[in-house]
């Protein structure tokens, strides 16, 4: 290190050295993401323009848009709409269930808060697959749900292998992803603002509608995106709890790669879904930001 007065050149050199050190810290994450995320994504993108040979093999020539054209196929649209609606309903139910609960947690004392937050996270301690399989036992024709119905003189119900079962499984699986961002937003809320609203003649409900809810919008947006996106592409839950009739996007894409061996179409489907997710996210952020 040179000792002496600083000149603009020395200052610039020092700043450069500082930013190089910053890059070094980010390097492991960059390497990981490029290797296991960016490169595979590029591969999928390239494959989506490839063509198939008569024997069903993927041929990396004759680049075309056929796979993308197939996205307009009524069957694909139907699967997409079904998945989209299911993800939308899942998100709505998660929001309705989580908001009061997150509000409840955020308004407790510090020790109670921590206990409740740990309780929210406990499900993560056991495997998602195992927990989803457990729902098979509950929702099956001789499961608890059906037994309860029979106790009250009802018919045996079989929820398993229907869209309802998938919905239950998705809400169950993604609920914590809604609770946590909502909690974070409500916990940050300046409760003086709510008092100010009450002071300015707002009823409890009006204060919530005009102040609490708009100010918790960042949490609502973050939670909704965290639930909607994985729900739209969900594979495990529909595969375990869903029926063969109501095919969903995740399952459909997997079947293109494995059963149908149509990699170009599977790749195009993946990109189509990602594009819609991107649009939905941007739209949601815009709406969310406007209300702020």
């Amino acid at each position, binding site marked *: 290190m040179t000792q002496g007065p600083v000149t603009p050149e020395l200052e610039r050199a020092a700043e450069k050295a500082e930013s190089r050190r910053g890059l070094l810290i980010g390097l492991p994450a960059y390497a990981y993401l490029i290797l296991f995320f960016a490169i595979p994504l590029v591969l999928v993108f390239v494959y989506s323009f490839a063509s198939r040979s008569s024997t069903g093999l993927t041929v990396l020539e004759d680049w075309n848009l056929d796979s993308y054209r197939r996205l307009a196929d009524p069957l694909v649209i139907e699967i997409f709409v079904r998945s989209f609606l299911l993800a939308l309903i899942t998100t709505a139910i998660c929001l309705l269930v989580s908001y009061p609960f997150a509000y409840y947690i955020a308004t407790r004392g510090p020790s109670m808060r921590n206990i409740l937050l740990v309780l929210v996270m406990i499900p993560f301690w056991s495997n998602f697959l195992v927990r989803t399989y457990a729902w098979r036992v509950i929702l099956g024709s001789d499961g608890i749900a059906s037994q309860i119905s029979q106790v009250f003189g009802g018919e045996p119900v079989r929820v398993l292998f229907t869209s309802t079962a998938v919905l239950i499984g998705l809400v169950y699986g993604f609920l914590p992803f809604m609770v946590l961002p909502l909690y974070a937003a409500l916990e940050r809320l*300046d409760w*003086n*603002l709510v*008092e*100010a*609203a*009450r*002071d*300015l*003649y*707002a*009823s*409890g409900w*009006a204060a919530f509608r*005009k*102040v609490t809810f*708009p*100010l918790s919008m960042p949490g609502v947006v973050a939670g909704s995106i965290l639930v909607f996106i994985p729900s739209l592409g969900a594979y495990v839950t529909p595969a375990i709890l869903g029926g063969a009739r109501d095919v969903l996007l995740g399952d459909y894409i997997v079947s293109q790669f494995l059963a149908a061996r149509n990699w170009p179409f599977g790749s195009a489907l993946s990109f189509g879904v990602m594009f819609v997710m991107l649009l939905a996210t941007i739209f949601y952020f815009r709406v969310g930001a406007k*209300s*702020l």
Partner: protein
Amino acid sequence: MATPAVELVGVTKRFGDDVVAVDTLDLTIEDGEFFSLLGPSGCGKTTTLRMIAGFEYPTEGSVRIHGVEMGLKPPNERPVNTVFQSYALFPHMTVFENVAFGLEMQKVANADVETRVRRVLDQVQLAQRADARPSQLSGGMQQRVALARALVNEPEVLLLDEPLGALDLKLRQNMQYELKDLQTRVGITFVYVTHDQEEALTMSDRIGVMSAGKLLQVGDSHEIYESPTSRFVADFIGEINLLEGEVTAPGAARLANGSEVGIPPGHPSAGRVTLALRPERLVLHQVAGAVPDDRNQMRARIVRRTYYGDVYFYDVEAGLSAPLEVKEENRPDVVTHAVGDEVIVSWSTDSANLVSD
């Protein structure tokens, strides 16, 4: 006589089992008055204000506003508005929307809302910034929005919780005048909570001094400063010298250094008394002959001198439990003393006060 704006009768607030925030408080605030609740943090003044606003309910006791018992009424059903210490402006609304909030909640017709909001924004000189977000305004402007937001509702009582606390000194002084002018103009009763004695003294019609949940003394600025009745009030407001003495005869007491001094009437016939003396009521003399006969006097020595520009503060050792503080103006006709100088300290008996512990 008109009904008082606010009456607190036997109001106690306990948090949990052992924290008593406010202890059997009785207080009457007259209509149109600028009343300050003054005290150190944690003395219960903010809790008292919050009980008037309805953010807290008393554990027991009665809060009445213009004679109407408030009981367990929620804040939105009370004819009062609050200016919060942190302003609590709604960050997702414009200045206009913030100010209009209370009127809209009261279902005032839209045209009226518009005119009333414009008028009050004019009053606080923020008409130009009606469409700005609170975060785009300076602290002083935010403060005025908070004020406008409360005043637009024309409340019977305006509650202010240290509203100037977050402003810097110059701005705070300007706002003190503005607030006082505004209060005189609109004629609304102000209940003003502060820990700043200067603020309380300059603005208030009357001041209530609180400590540890109790109201120690209520009076106008002059009374509170000149005639504190307790050691706490004397010590909290301004600078004070507290002199311990033993009553020797009617109107006389002996201090720890053996001096016999006069004490004001109303003292016990025997036993210990505490005299409170303001530093500016003490006068330093170079020679004993210069002191008029009717003044108390004692020998002393300067141990420290602090220069404040407009005044000198002297610490004067006179053989008492602590050095006396003397404040003398920095004027050509007032002699300046140096550390180590032998002097005479004098004061007149009627400028001293007897205070309880």
